[in-house]
């Protein structure tokens, strides 16, 4: 091997070129393979981002369409007091005012119970017994129980209709009991269930 050293020295430049090309070739092959793998992973990530953005865009479009088609209804509900803080004293005052407006006997007794969080698809009675906590912005149900004596059936229905038209709140008749018919009228006991939707605190998304 020692005899070959002068030969290698004379051909040193070409051998260095060969070594350089060898290193470059290895770098080119394995480097390009690595780069290809890396770029493919990046592309997959970008495609996943596109899919997510498309889904987000679809959701935003649905939200906008929903707003466009329901904004007037929503504004009416806002005006009716469904959204925001509950005007509980106003509900009671309006009940008294409606009774007075219709000239019904002064036999009204009412109880506005404390609000109960309402879970989606569950009754307020169930929500109280639920083990899972309800979210802070869950809708609230308020039961307003009242009793009127010595009124007639038509007067009672008229009271409900008048009250529904004037009260700033959205409610439904949950139950009614009509008893003790007499010549002076009957006794009506009803439960009206009001619903309110708390707005999110400022800054909360």
């Amino acid at each position, binding site marked *: 091997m020692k*005899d070959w050293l002068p030969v290698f020295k004379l*051909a040193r430049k070409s051998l260095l070129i060969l070594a350089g090309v060898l290193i470059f070739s290895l770098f080119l092959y394995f480097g390009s393979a690595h780069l290809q793998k890396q770029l493919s992973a990046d592309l997959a990530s970008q495609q996943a981002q596109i899919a997510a953005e498309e889904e987000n865009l679809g959701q935003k479009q649905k939200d906008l369409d929903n707003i466009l088609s329901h904004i007037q209804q929503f504004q009416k509900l806002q005006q009716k007091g469904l959204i925001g803080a509950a005007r509980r004293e106003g509900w009671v005052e309006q009940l008294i005012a409606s009774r007075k407006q219709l000239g019904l006997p002064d036999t009204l007794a009412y109880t506005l119970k404390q609000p109960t969080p309402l879970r989606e698809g569950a009754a307020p009675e169930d929500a109280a017994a639920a083990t899972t906590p309800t979210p802070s912005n869950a809708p609230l149900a308020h039961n307003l129980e009242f009793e009127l004596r010595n009124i007639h059936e038509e007067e009672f229905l008229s009271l409900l209709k008048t009250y529904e038209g004037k009260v700033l709140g959205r409610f439904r008749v949950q139950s009614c009991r009509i008893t003790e018919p007499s010549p002076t009228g009957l006794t009506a006991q009803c439960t009206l269930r009001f619903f309110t939707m708390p707005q999110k605190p400022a800054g909360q998304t």
Partner: protein
Amino acid sequence: MKSLLYLASSGCQLWCKDKDGWRISTAEPTEPVWVVTDLPDESFAEIEMPRLFGRDRSTFIARQLASRFPDTPYRTALTPHHVSGLMERLAPTHQLFLGISSPERLDTEIGERPITGVWPISLLLTHFCHSRKLPAELLVVLPSPEALRIVFLKKHTPLLTRLAPVANDIRVQAEEIIRTRRYLENTRMIERGQTCPVLLLGDAGAFANPLASAQMTLIAPPAPWDTHPPADWHLPLFDLALTCPAGQIAPIGRRTDFLAKRLRLFALGAAALLMLTSLWAASGNLSVILNTLRQQEQAKTKVQQLQSNITELEQKTNSFGVDPELLRRAITLDEQEVASAPAIADHLQSLSQVLSGFPELRLKQLEWRLLATGETACAKTAGSTVPAAAETPPPAEGEAKRLVELEFEISLPDTYGPGDQARVLRQISQQLGKIKGIALAQDPARELDQGVLQGSTTSTAEKRQHWCLSLPGSTKASAKATEAKP
């Protein structure tokens, strides 16, 4: 132009080959020259050796070569031709050496001149006669004006070479050939009395008679020389030398320039080949990379476009000042819980229509109650045998089932006998049954057939009858509202 230095016992000649062929040159070449020797002290030596492998084998051969040709660097080991068997090919037990025992003449003639290698004429003659068409045992004779080169091949392997210093005399040269044959017979290299083929590279016709008398037959040279023999048989051997056949004997130190040039060419060729191969091998990856980069650019543009669209939609949405989620939940809540709730007035009106046909009856008590989801109507009513939900028609798809429980009590006049009572009860139940979707859970008319009938002629108390039923109040689910976000 390639140059060749021919060293013979009589002198030294520098030949060069151009497009016109070989000619003697006087100009000193700048490139390494091929050296062909025809000296008297070149010789073959054959040894037997154990079957060794690897470094042991190369060390043993180097030691044996040094002992056979101790005073010269011009020596080499040749692999014998025509060995049979795999083991004999891998590690032959016969080894052939070739060398020029006195190097002074070579060193003097070559001087500092760069050379490609040194090929003894005996070696070139061996390669020249390598054709299988020639006999395996052959005496090759190359006459020249000053001497006669004789090489004996056995099984195409050279065993003997000698340079007879005889002048250009046919008779004397023939005698030298016959003398060589006798030597071979004496050393049992050939059988005595056996016809010995001779390849005579020269004027063979003049040797025919003397050699025939010694049982030696002249054979024709290999193609294409059999039809067109050259004027000087050294020239085909020079051509053979230019191909650098195996077996040159010069040490590496003498061939440095040539080997370096060959190595440079090899390295550059290999580098070019390697570059092309790597480019070819990486072309697939590079193509994919370029394609991926293009796709990434497109994806980037698409993401920007999508984000721009999203921003635009968000701006439009924000212009309403409404949280979309709040809107969706508010609309859903109102539609599910309030707007779709059945009205008590409608149900009371339906009941009023039923009872209007019986003016003598008095409604004593009524309870209207919205049932919770899944709650059974009239569950607390005693005597309830049929669950209301079982008789309720199934809700249409997309509708949530909401039921109202209606319970009422009617008093009958005490003047009614059992027959009148039964008729009125059946008529009322029949009228109630006409209300769409109604399910009677407690029905006094049904108890007439299955229950206990009780009464008294002395009692003046009013007779009360109790109905409990469920009425449907379907609610449209908020299909219009946006689906909930995950």
